C-alpha cells in the first residue's frame, strides 16, 4: 500500500497534537490535565466549534483513544482541560505523562448545553464523584457570565472526602456569596474534620430542597445516582424538560460510524451527549 503524506484536512480520523502544560492530582487515581494545541489552525478550529457539553477523544499513540468530556468551559478556549480516572490503557499512560509531553485530541464532537436558554433562570447543578468535570464545564460557562443567571446552587457528593475532585475550586465556590455549594460524602466517607453533609446525593438534594421555579437542573453522575436523583427531582417538582444530563458510552470514532454508542435509536456521539431527562426517559432503559 502506498503511503502518502497528506494534510490533515480530509482525514476525519487524524487527531490534533496537544502539549500537556499543566497537571493536577484531584483525588486518588484522578488527574486533571491542561492541554494546548500545537497547530494554530487546529486551535482556531477548536475555538470556532467548541461549546460546553461537547466531548473529545484523547489519545496516546501506541495505546489508543479514550472518550471523555472537555472539562473546561466555552468561555475559556485557550486550552482544553480534561479530568480522568486512571483505569484503562489510555488513561494509565496519560496518567504517567508529564508536563511537556505530547498527546492527541480528536474533537470537539457532539451537541452542547443550550446555555443561552438558561439566561435569567436559576441554576441547580448536581454531580456525583468523577462526574463533576462535565458539570464543572457548565458551571464555569455560567459563572464566567454570572450576571446573566439567577441563583446558582451546586450539590456535589463523592464517596469519601478524598474522592472529591476540584478541591481548590470547591473552596472558591464555598467562599463566593453568589454560589450556594452543598457538599456531601457517603456515610462512612467523612473525615474527623468534615464540616459538610454526610449522605447520598438524592437525600442531600431533598434536604437542600431547591425550588423548581424558573430553575434549570444539570445532573451528572453514575447511572445509579442519576436514577435516584431523578426521582428526588420529580418529588421536588422539577419538570423533566428542565433537567439536563450527559450520557457517556464507549465510543471509537465519535463521528456516528463505528456503531457502538447508541442507546436505542439515539447515537450518543451525534445526538448527544447532552440530553434532557425527558429525552432520556424515552430511551429504552435496558440499553443504558
Amino acid at each position: 500500500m502506498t503511503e502518502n503524506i497528506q494534510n490533515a484536512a480530509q482525514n476525519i480520523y487524524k487527531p490534533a497534537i496537544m502539549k500537556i502544560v499543566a497537571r493536577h492530582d484531584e483525588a486518588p487515581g484522578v488527574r486533571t490535565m491542561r492541554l494546548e494545541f500545537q497547530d494554530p489552525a487546529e486551535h482556531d478550529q477548536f475555538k470556532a466549534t467548541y461549546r460546553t457539553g461537547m466531548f473529545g477523544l484523547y489519545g496516546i499513540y501506541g495505546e489508543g483513544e479514550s472518550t471523555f468530556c472537555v472539562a473546561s468551559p466555552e468561555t475559556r478556549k485557550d486550552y482544553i482541560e480534561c479530568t480522568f480516572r486512571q483505569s484503562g490503557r489510555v488513561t494509565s499512560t496519560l496518567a504517567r505523562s508529564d508536563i511537556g509531553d505530547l498527546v492527541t485530541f480528536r474533537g470537539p464532537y457532539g451537541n452542547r448545553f443550550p446555555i443561552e436558554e438558561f439566561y435569567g433562570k436559576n441554576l441547580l447543578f448536581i454531580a456525583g464523584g468523577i462526574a463533576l468535570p462535565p458539570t464543572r464545564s457548565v458551571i464555569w460557562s455560567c459563572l464566567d457570565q454570572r450576571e446573566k443567571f439567577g441563583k446558582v446552587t451546586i450539590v456535589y457528593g463523592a464517596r469519601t472526602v478524598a474522592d472529591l475532585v476540584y478541591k481548590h475550586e470547591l473552596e472558591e465556590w464555598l467562599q463566593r456569596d453568589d454560589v450556594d455549594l452543598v457538599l456531601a460524602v457517603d456515610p462512612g466517607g467523612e473525615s474527623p474534620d468534615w464540616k459538610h453533609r454526610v449522605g447520598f446525593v438524592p437525600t442531600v438534594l431533598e434536604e437542600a430542597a431547591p425550588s423548581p421555579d424558573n430553575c434549570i437542573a444539570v445532573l451528572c453522575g453514575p447511572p445509579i445516582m442519576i436514577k435516584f436523583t431523578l426521582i428526588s427531582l420529580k418529588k421536588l417538582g422539577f419538570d423533566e424538560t428542565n433537567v439536563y444530563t450527559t450520557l457517556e458510552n464507549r465510543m471509537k470514532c465519535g463521528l456516528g460510524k463505528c456503531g457502538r454508542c447508541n442507546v436505542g435509536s439515539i447515537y450518543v456521539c451525534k445526538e448527544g451527549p447532552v440530553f434532557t431527562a425527558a429525552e432520556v426517559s424515552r430511551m429504552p432503559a435496558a440499553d443504558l
Partner: protein
Amino acid sequence: MTKILFTDKLDNCIERWKSAGRTVIGPVQKNNISTYDTVKSASELDLNLVLPDRSIKELFFPQSEPMLRYTIKKEAINTSEFLPPSGQRIIFGARACDASGLAIDDPLFGWDYKDEYWFQRRNESVIVTIACTKADDFCMCTSLKLAPDSPKGSDIMLRPLENKKGWQVEELTERGREAFKTIADLLQESNEAAAPTITVPEKFDSTACAEWLKKPENFESKFWKEISLRCIGCGSCTYLCPTCHCFDIQDEGDTYNGIRRKNWDSCSFALFTMHTSGHNPRSTQSARWRQRIMHKFNYFPGKFSANSCSGCGRCTRQCPVDMGITETLQEISKLSQ
C-alpha cells in the same frame, strides 16, 4: 435491438479495461472460498455462483485498514497518513444484493463527517452487476423490497441471455456509460432474449416487522432471549454482511513507532460496548442480537430511510448454529399478526 456483451468477448473487454488503466475485479475461488478479487482474464472469473461467500464490502471497507503511521521522537510526534490506494476499478459480476449494500452504507459513511477511505474507493469503482438467474433457499432480497435485478448501487446491469452466450447491457449511470465506452466496439446489437430473472419468494413482511420493532414495549420482549439462545457470538454474520459497518480503531506498534488501524468489529462481541468501569449496556447475547436486528430494521431506516440489509442471506447461509436474520424476521412477522 439491445446491446449485447458476448462471453467470448469478455477477455477482450478485460484487456481493454486493463490497458485503459483500470483494475478488473470479480468473483473468484480462492483457497476454497469464493470472494471478489482482482482477475487477469475471464477464465479466472466464477460467474456461476449464486453469490460469493464473502461480500463486496471488503473492496471498499477492508477488514483491517491502516490509517495513520506515527513516529514519536523526543518533543515531536510525526504522523503520516495512509490513503486508500487510488486507481479506477471495474467490479465485474457483482450481485444486486452486494451492489445495493454499498448504496445503503453511503449515507452512513457520509453523515456529516465524510470517510474518505470509503468514498475514494466508491468514486473510483464501476459496479457491473449480473442479474440473478438462480438463487438458493437463503436468498431474501425480495423480502427487503429489493430484487435479483435491483439497480440500486449498480452502474451497469447485465442480463444473462437465454442461450447463456452473453448478457444484455443496461447502462444505469454516467460512470457505467463511461467505462463501457472503452469497449463499445466489442458490444453487438442483437435481438437475443434474456433469460428470466429468478423469482425469489418473499420470506417475511419487512413492513410489519418494522412496525413491531418500533413499539417500545417489544424492546424487552422475551422473544429476544428465545430467538438468540443458540447464538455463540462468533460475529460471522456481521463480517460477511455487505452492510454491517461497525469498526474498532486500534494501534499496532510500540511507544515510538506504529500504525493506527481501522478494523472490522461486531455488535455480537461482549467487549464491543463494555465501559472501562465494567458496566456494559449490552451485556447479554440476546441484547446484542436485539441490537443487530433493531439497528438494521429500525434505527438505520429511521436515519437513512433504508433497511441496513440487502437480503443476500449470508448471515443465515454461513451461520455455524443455523440462526440468522431470516428466521428472526419470520418470527417477528408471526408476532406482528
